[in-house]
């Protein structure tokens, strides 16, 4: 079973040299910590940064320099700043190769719900709908089941949708799964110590298990 950092570490392997990547809030943010040396990627923050760096040293925070999570950040050499319209322009034009974000539910056809729970205070979708509607490759980082113990990998999402037919891959504490174009979650890897049976039990949507599913080496 993976912890949050384990999920982030596993997702980091999907990040390839030369990619522009947008990381959502939460586990996705941690992915930046595990990108291997020599893999050159550029982090996009949708409030207007390409080439986002780490948090500033204490005392060097700049109120004018924040990321999409409203955290103070820094700029790497070679970074650029732009306005919000251009930022989503480059997202919409699919210049950002990979979006990694959290989810409340994912359906077996790749629909995602991650912004609204009926009856609870709605905070808004922020840039999530734009990101999932346009990114070529979308990886979801989330827990396999919710706090009530119910599967978050469903035949169909119950919650209001953020986007449809867009999620390509899911990494949870239990497994790595591909969402197939024809529908279904294909089990790609088991987390260390996790059995196929456990994953089956935690997956409400159509799970596809082909041959021996390797345990991930993390």
């Amino acid at each position, binding site marked *: 079973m993976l912890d949050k950092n384990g999920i982030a570490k596993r997702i980091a392997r999907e990040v390839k040299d030369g990619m522009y990547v947008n990381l959502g809030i939460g586990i996705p943010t941690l992915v930046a910590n595990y990108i291997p040396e020599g893999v050159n990627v550029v982090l996009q923050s949708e409030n207007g940064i390409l080439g986002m760096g780490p948090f500033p040293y*204490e005392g060097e925070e700049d109120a004018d320099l924040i990321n999409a999570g409203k955290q*103070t950040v820094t700029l790497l050499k070679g970074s650029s700043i732009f306005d919000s319209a251009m930022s989503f322009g480059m*997202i919409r034009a699919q210049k950002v190769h990979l979006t990694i974000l959290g989810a409340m539910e994912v359906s077996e056809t790749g629909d995602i719900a991650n912004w609204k729970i009926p009856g609870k205070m709605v905070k808004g979708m922020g840039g999530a709908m734009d990101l999932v509607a346009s990114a070529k490759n979308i990886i979801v980082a989330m827990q396999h089941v919710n706090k009530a113990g119910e599967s978050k990998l469903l035949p169909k999402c119950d919650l209001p949708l953020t986007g449809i037919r867009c999620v390509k891959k899911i990494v949870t504490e239990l497994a790595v799964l591909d969402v197939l174009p024809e529908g279904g979650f294909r089990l790609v890897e088991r987390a260390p110590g996790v059995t196929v049976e456990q994953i089956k039990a935690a997956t409400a949507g159509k799970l596809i298990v082909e041959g021996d599913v390797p345990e991930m080496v993390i």
Partner: protein
Amino acid sequence: MINKVVANADEALKGIEDGMTIMVGGFGLCGIPENSISALIKKGTKNLTCISNNAGVDDFGLGLLLQTKQIKKMISSYVGENAEFERQMLSGELEVDLVPQGTLATRCMMAGYGIPFFPTPAGVGTEVAIGKQVINWKGRDYLMEEAFEAEFAIVKAWKGDSAGNLIFRSTARNFNQPMSMGGKITVAEVEELVPLGELVPDQIHTPGIYIHRIFQGSNYEKRIEQRTVRPKK
């Protein structure tokens, strides 16, 4: 050159009336027009529709205008971190129109580019699509979205000159740039009003033609919402 300078925020906001629609720049608390927000509170204009990515926090930014109940409707992409907002929304006092962030920014920009509507894939298949025209173009679905029509846009820039030319600083550019081009009347407050000729023409983010009134702001607090740091090595 045409001189756009006004003395202060009060003068800059002349003509904003009850019930109007205004764009307010900034992302979170970054790059918000602090002086203009204070002046709006003093002015007491009511029933405003505010187009702004966020709604500030309880005691800063647009949150202040919520406290004084001057806002009738918020058009935003994300409105967390605000207890008074939540209270007013749940009680039905405040209308809220949630718009995907990229759509929001582009609706501002398109107003400044004279393009009244445009297609975007954001929100297809979600509740955002309800009531909107869906067009399939080369095998992909798009929602038709409209450019905003706002009587005023209120933005904050780093530097500006009397011709209304603006330069933004770092991520405080955010919505300020598209909004600065998208209002029928655009008011810009700047940290530094510089002499004509000091800004490099190639470095100007918003050309002065889009700006109607500009003034030198003061006492910027520039509050940080999430102070994240790492220890010095």
